[in-house]
């Protein structure tokens, strides 16, 4: 046959779909990390939450999430395309492919919270929360930044979602865990913290690799088109460098501070680097990625220590990884970003002044404020109605038996003396 050529839109769809598959797979990564970092007696519970919040997110984002996020109308909220009925795709690629990519992002934002509120939150309460955040809260923020909303109009930049996904998830986790209070036995009366060790480092390690792997869909996929490959190449390399550097700096920081190279922290560091690079990945040079990731790795270690100082119990480090580094990544655009790579103004060090920096700060702070208020209300209402936290007895026995009537590791002899 005589050669026929592939149409651009087909190749772009192919690319976005593969990226969407990878982002979906991150859900498994979140599940394994969260499960690995908590006690075995609550493992089935966190996995159920993680599994169902993606299901909920898919349905919620189908029913109204997409309409709110990408539906036309005012710059605060979209209101068109309920149930995807004549919903439009803002880009060239077909609506269904675009939806899947966005739905996977929505699921990620939702599941971040599970880790921060792990080992004591009621399952019912979690189900409700997860539907609300993915059907309403997340899409609204998304609309502001990616849906042509007011922040987009201000040229606020967040390439792949440091703010949209990670800051949202991280600060929802923060307000959630504050309202929920620490796990029994985590802090002593004198405010000092106790170790509540994760039950499976291998699970956690696998999870981090899966997340890193999925991030190659998360960031490069956000180009939404292949073009001549130069942009997706840059984004992919920057993503990898930031992650690697984050892992290294986090390990050395904790090593210096506490005398041992703690894998759980090194892994958090890589995730921190990934979160931080998510916003700027397209607008910077690799050496900047090295810096951004490296700083991210330090931030996460200090963040975890800081939270313990304030007796805020975040079992998996969700707040430090996603919350704090979401901020850092968003701001870093204002410092290392380049006009030639698609920004409207150069970053600080390229002589672009503090203009972009201020826009970034403005954007991320409003989002944080919005999340703390709205999610604070959501959690409070849930607490006052069906209740947010399981009983003391159930917390001792473990949520697996209490909430699901089953064990995660039937037959295994496990000490539960915490």
């Amino acid at each position, binding site marked *: 046959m005589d050669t026929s050529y592939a149409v651009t839109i087909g190749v772009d769809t192919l690319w976005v779909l593969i990226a969407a598959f990878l982002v979906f797979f991150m859900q498994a990564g979140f599940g394994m990390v969260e499960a690995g970092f908590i006690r075995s007696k609550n493992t089935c519970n966190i996995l159920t939450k993680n599994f169902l919040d993606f299901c909920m997110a898919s349905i919620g984002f189908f029913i109204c999430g997409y309409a709110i996020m990408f539906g036309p109308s005012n710059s605060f909220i979209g209101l068109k395309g309920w149930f995807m009925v004549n919903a439009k795709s803002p880009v060239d690629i077909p609506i269904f492919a675009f939806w899947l990519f966005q739905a996977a992002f929505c699921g990620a934002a939702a599941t971040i919270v599970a880790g921060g509120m792990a080992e004591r939150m009621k399952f019912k309460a979690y189900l409700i929360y997860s539907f609300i955040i993915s059907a309403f809260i997340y899409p609204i923020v998304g609309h502001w930044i990616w849906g042509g909303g007011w922040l987009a109009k201000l040229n606020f930049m967040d390439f792949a979602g440091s703010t949209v996904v990670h800051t949202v998830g991280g600060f929802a986790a923060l307000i959630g865990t504050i309202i929920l209070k620490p796990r029994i036995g985590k802090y002593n009366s004198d405010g000092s913290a106790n170790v509540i060790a994760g039950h499976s480092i291998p699970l956690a390690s696998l999870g981090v690799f899966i997340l890193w792997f999925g991030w190659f869909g998360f960031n490069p996929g956000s180009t939404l088109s292949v073009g001549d490959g130069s942009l997706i190449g840059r984004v992919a390399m920057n993503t990898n460098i930031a992650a690697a550097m984050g892992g290294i700096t986090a390990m050395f920081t904790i090593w210096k501070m506490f005398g041992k190279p703690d894998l759980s922290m090194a892994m958090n560091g890589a995730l921190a680097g990934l979160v931080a690079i998510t916003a700027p990945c397209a607008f910077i040079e690799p050496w900047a990625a090295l810096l951004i990731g490296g700083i991210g790795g330090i931030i996460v270690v200090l963040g975890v220590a800081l939270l313990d100082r304030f007796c805020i119990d975040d079992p998996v480090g969700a707040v430090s990884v996603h919350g704090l580094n979401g901020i850092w990544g968003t701001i870093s655009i204002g410092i290392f970003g380049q006009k030639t790579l698609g920004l409207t103004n150069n970053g600080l060090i390229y002589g672009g002044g503090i203009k972009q920096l201020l826009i970034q700060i403005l954007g991320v702070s409003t989002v944080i404020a919005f999340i703390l208020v709205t999610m604070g209300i959501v959690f409070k209402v849930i607490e006052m109605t069906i209740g947010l936290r399981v009983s003391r007895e159930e917390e001792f026995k473990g949520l697996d*038996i209490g909430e699901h009537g*089953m064990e995660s590791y039937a037959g295994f002899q496990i000490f*539960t*003396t915490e």
Partner: protein
Amino acid sequence: MKLIIAMIQPHKLPDVKKALYEAEVYKMTVTNALGCGQQKGYTETYRGVIHDINLLKKIRLDIAVNEDFVEPTIKAIIRGAKTDKIGDGKIFVLDLQECIRIRTGERGNAAIG
């Protein structure tokens, strides 16, 4: 010399250890066990089948002490383990005929502590 065996609730272990330390009992061996008693269990459901669990997680303590430490030890265990709920557990006292410290070969009272 006596060998004191206690079955307690897992989550009371830290309190019991604290109480024992206060009673100057520093040496013990801990094993995890499953207990079956008055305390009713719970039901598990797995894939549509319901299942009664009556073997509950317990911690077993083995503590060898000299005569004069028997009562203090028992009291300490009770102080640490008591929650007034069914399932708090039991303490058993056996006569210990001989005790040897492997490292030194010492025997008897000297070897206990």
